[in-house]
């Protein structure tokens, strides 16, 4: 395997930055997320970022197109994405899996979401294996291999003081080619993941939920929920959006922005009818969507076990407890 010392990582990133706009997981302003690589950024390799990389592909607010409205006329103007290839370094398996979920939503079932596709096509990914899962991680229970990501162009392995690199796709081979001179060949093995703190058994949870729409557990589970959007906004797989516009006189900018099924307004209809009027229906929708509806529609879970929702929930409404409760329900 080709390896590099962690201490020399920045040399590699500097080389790659000549070719790509490189994004790295870094600490910033008392949180952490993927940001543009610069020599002085505080890269974190010992844990996953608090905010998922989903905004690289699906920004929280994304301008879609512009309009000029004068009297009765309305002219449309497209907005083009910034050009150039991006390279996302250090994406964990869970977050790579979430891109797989996003691909299903945005690229299949008859319509292609061009905004997403343009971004997705312009990003090359270097996935990074986890040596020690964080306490809130439970990816293995959701069928994600923390040592080998799906869909990565390059797989990187955490080897202690070194990082191993392996090209997976053609695009990945190109990346390795660029930095080959800075890597050394060593007989390293794919590492074993550390022990998971959360023990979760999600086997059969999707099937079990088939008959559980009316189950009393939803009353129970939802009581403490505050219906904030924290869990869905930090979730790498949540993809709901709203479409709206900013009007400045004649100039209108149409944008889309993240939305959440936790909010009441999300399903509010004309005439006051709301099919999901209380937190019970909203919480049920969130978990059903992740664990039942999505598997039904796309044949995969909409939860990668990244644990972010567990981390941010103000009331510790823990998805692993909910899974347990579902499995134990009569």
């Amino acid at each position: 395997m080709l390896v590099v010392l962690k201490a020399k990582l920045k040399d590699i990133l500097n080389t790659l930055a000549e070719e790509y706009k490189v994004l790295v997981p870094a600490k910033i302003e008392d949180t952490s997320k993927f940001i543009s690589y610069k020599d002085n950024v505080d890269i974190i390799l010992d844990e996953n970022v608090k905010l998922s990389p989903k905004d690289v592909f699906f920004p929280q607010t994304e301008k879609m197109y512009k309009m000029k409205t004068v009297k009765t006329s309305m002219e449309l103007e497209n907005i083009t994405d910034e050009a150039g290839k991006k390279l996302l370094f250090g994406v964990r398996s869970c977050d790579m899996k979430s891109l797989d979920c996003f691909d299903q939503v945005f690229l299949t079932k008859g319509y292609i979401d061009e905004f997403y596709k343009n971004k997705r096509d312009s990003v090359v990914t270097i996935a990074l294996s986890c040596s020690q899962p964080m306490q809130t991680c439970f990816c293995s229970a959701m069928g994600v291999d923390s040592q080998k990501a799906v869909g990565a162009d390059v797989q990187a392995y955490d080897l202690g003081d070194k990082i191993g690199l392996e090209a997976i796709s053609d695009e990945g081979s190109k990346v390795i080619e660029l930095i080959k001179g800075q890597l050394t060949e060593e007989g390293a093995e794919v590492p074993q993941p550390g022990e998971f703190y959360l023990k979760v058994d999600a086997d059969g949870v999707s099937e079990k939920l088939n008959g559980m729409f009316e189950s009393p557990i939803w009353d129970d589970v939802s009581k403490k929920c505050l219906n904030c959007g924290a869990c869905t906004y930090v979730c790498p797989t949540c993809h709901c959006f709203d479409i709206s516009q900013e009007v400045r006189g004649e100039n209108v900018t149409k944008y889309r922005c993240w939305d959440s099924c936790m909010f009441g307004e999300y399903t509010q209809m004309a005439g006051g009818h709301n099919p999901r009027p209380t937190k019970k229906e909203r919480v049920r929708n969130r978990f059903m969507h992740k664990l039942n509806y999505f598997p039904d529609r796309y044949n995969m879970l909409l939860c990668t076990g990244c644990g972010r929702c567990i981390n941010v929930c103000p009331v510790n409404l823990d998805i692993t407890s909910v899974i347990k409760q579902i499995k134990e329900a009569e």
Partner: protein
Amino acid sequence: MCENCSCGNDHNHDHDHDQNVLIPQRGKIINIVEETSDTKTFSISTIDDKKPFDPQPGQLGMLSLGNVGEAIFSVTNKGENHIEMAIKAVGELTNALHEVEVGQEVGIRGAYGNGFPLDFCKGKDLLFIGGGIGLAPVRSLIMHCIRNRDDYGKLTVIYGARSKADLCFKEDLFENWPKVPNMDVFVTIDREEEGWDGHVGFVPSYVEELALKPQVTVVCGPPIMIKFTLPGLQKMGYADTDIITTLEMRMKCGVGKCGRCNIGSKYVCLDGPVFTLAEMKDLPQEY
């Protein structure tokens, strides 16, 4: 399976895969008909006088006014170079639309949704039941049947509104449709009213009273009307697969991406809005 492309949908699409589906075409309003005090029918073409898209009966379109917003509406009819939408003023966009005049430019995108199962309806006697603005989606199917009169059996319409003034598509109901061969139209209003010598009463009871039994029935209207009409239809012996209706959920994208119109694992914008009662029974009761 869609024959126009490899999109994998189970019905034909004519959308252009190079076109960004969330960006509308530039269209304009070419005609406005006042249906009732709060409902108007708008005819819409593209800026160069073409039909914006070629909708199947029951499909949907997203209409927008640049500085106000965008919303989804059933296409109630199509012509050579336009489509029609009947719009009730209930909120920001719809009220603003009611203020505009012929010539107004709009954004238009579509056609979305599955539409009515035409093959299934072919050759059969059809009963259309509608209430209020709920006739809008059904109208596209009625117009289709009239245009292709020989492909369908007897056509019957039962339609009701709160009062005479609330009846939509009056010209169709009283002038055009009664003249169509082998077609009956029954109209009712909720309460007695001066100058009305037609039937008085709610749609569900009128349906039971008339006790007609064509082969397939299409029911669209306010949820309450549907709720009370269904038991009657079942009593009349309709199978769940022969009762067809449309559902509404809040919508933003229209193409199965934004997530909000789901009922269980189905997206109403993509897998609907047309469902048979049998299909509806498989959905969670959350609409």
